[in-house]
């Protein structure tokens, strides 16, 4: 007997007490919890997102489309970033004001090459207000997963209020499971020393989030 058959057989024998009339999935699971906590306007969701992101040590900025290039230049300059990764789906003009070398990930940079990249600028798929979370789904404006991981500085652009949802259930409704997803809530952190949170381990240690109006 294959191990597959063996394990499945063991399971079926272990469940001999379960009647054929056992309630099906949609009846067995009560979903009396709420889809979102509290009633907020889209603008209030944006404020809550900003508050929660900041609470977990992300740096939150707000601007209109007209001021974006200048803001990015300032953020990159503050970090003294020289080499910046920009996914193909974001316009090159975004970094026109910044004195940096712009790389795209079209050629598929290796991990070692990415290690020499100072900053990465991406968009996101959706942002979750209640938890202060950005979700990336490897869309054209976000690039590969390793691109937002190896560089030590990530600048993430969120179109507000369009891309902001209230809650985790609302976010899952919009996301496609077939895409690789990365949920990011603040910079890399650990609770492994005395169960107290400190920021900064393997992922980007600085996370700038730009809430772009309109």
């Amino acid at each position, binding site marked *: 007997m294959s191990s597959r058959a063996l394990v499945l057989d063991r399971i079926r024998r272990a469940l001999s007490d379960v009647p054929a009339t056992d309630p099906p999935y949609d009846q*067995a699971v009560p979903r009396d919890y709420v889809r979102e906590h509290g009633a907020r306007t889209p603008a209030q969701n944006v404020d809550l997102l900003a508050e929660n992101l900041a609470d977990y040590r992300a740096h939150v900025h707000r601007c209109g489309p007209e001021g974006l290039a200048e803001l990015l230049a300032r953020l990159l300059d503050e970090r003294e970033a020289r080499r910046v990764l920009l996914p193909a789906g974001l316009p090159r003009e975004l970094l026109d004001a910044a004195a940096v070398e712009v790389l795209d990930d079209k050629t598929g940079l290796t991990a070692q090459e990415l290690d020499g990249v100072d900053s990465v600028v991406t968009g996101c798929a959706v942002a979750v207000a209640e938890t202060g979370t950005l979700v990336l789904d490897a869309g054209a404006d976000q690039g590969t997963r390793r691109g937002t991981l190896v560089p030590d500085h990530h600048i993430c652009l969120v179109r507000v209020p369009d891309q902001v949802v209230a809650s985790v259930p609302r976010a899952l409704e919009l996301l496609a499971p077939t895409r690789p997803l990365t949920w990011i809530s603040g910079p890399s952190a650990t609770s492994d020393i005395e169960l107290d949170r400190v920021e900064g381990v393997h992922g980007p240690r600085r996370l700038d989030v730009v809430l772009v109006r309109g």
Partner: protein
Amino acid sequence: MSGTFLGMPAFPEAARTSVHNPTLRANIRHATHTIRTKRAAAVAELDDWAELREAGKQIKEHTLRHLDRYLVQLEEAVTAAGGTVHWAADADEANRIVTELVRATGESEVVKVKSMATQEIGLNEALEAAGIAAYETDLAELIVQLGEDRPSHILVPAIHRNRGEIRDIFRREMGRWGRAAPDGLSDEPAQLAEAARLHLREKFLRAKVAVSGANFMVAETGTLVVVESEGNGRMCLTLPETLISVAGIEKVVPTWRDLEVFLQTLPRSSTAERMNPYTSMWTGTTPGDGPRNFHLVLLDNGRTDTLADEVGRQALRCIRCSACLNVCPVYERAGGHAYGSVYPGPIGAILSPQLRGTQSEIDASLPYASSLCGACYDVCPVAIDIPEVLVHLREQVAEQPGHRLERAAMGAAAKAFDHPSVLAAGQRLASLTRRLHPSKLPGPGRAWSESRDLPAFPAESFRTWFKRQERRKREEGTR
């Protein structure tokens, strides 16, 4: 389970050592009390916590009751998305599968994401025996691995170490395994985290094979989910060419939507955060992004035995948040090592004896390693009634040889209690001889009287007093 814990002494003996270790007591007390308060605050933010908890419980319970169906569905979905599914009946088989998969890549080292399942099966030791180095990349796992220590907590395996001890381990050991700790490393947590970042980065960048576990597996989509904080998980899940995930068969959930429950309850229960810093979800392989080869090893290793027990089955609902450890007064004082398993604390006390059976000394003692205070059940995000399962397992253990005397004593007590006249006579005798009672008991009673005095035996029982009162009232009434 892992051979690491074979021959462990029973819980009471192991706990005796830790109870009298002031550093250990202080470390665990500090850490668990810190997280306890924060968890309560994080949970209190959600006014529908009870409903989320009930939904989580019922999702898991339903899945377990139809586990065969959901595993087959998962297998189909993972395969369709480009992954390969393997089935392992026990630890040896799982280790063999992983070892062969690594060998087939021609590599001799792997990076690892913290995973309870691979700890449970002793994968690192098995790989080492096959000449493959396995590097733990979670900070706490790294501390344990470098210190040649054993894990003592589900979430924070190095919880028994304070910052000073961690600094000493890093200074002493890092150089032997790769990049040494920076000169003048202090015990500041931020500096310790930085040292781990530098030490592990070279390993991440060159790794070709990674091994992970999974927090959740979605049957309908074939999606795996890993919840983490540091980014070491993302490194392992995205940089290498080959990813091997080992997961217990109970980690499956039916639908994508089910994640909306657990992504709310797990972070708050475990690190007391609204959301953990990083969660990765992947479905098979994606061209140009992440590993080219993905293998999923589905692990039984005693889970089907647990599933067969209608009362004990609920232990398989566990999502490994470790909230029960953090509130447990016994864990706080005995420490994680006393539980003789990679699963310590209240959940370990019901999981280990079910996965391994109750024959060994340590496993037979675990169901008694609790005062049944119920704090664990209160905080469990999937409502596992741990006290209920503990008592149920005690019943199994009490049937085993070695409990003859206790069984006889319990039987005799029950018999006396079923005969009030015998009981009353005993009470009268005890009252008559009460001045002769020793304040310290011999034999098994010493366990009580070593540190506690017995109450003074009363001159008469309540029963006698009440009868006297009744008589007096009757006499007063007839007078």
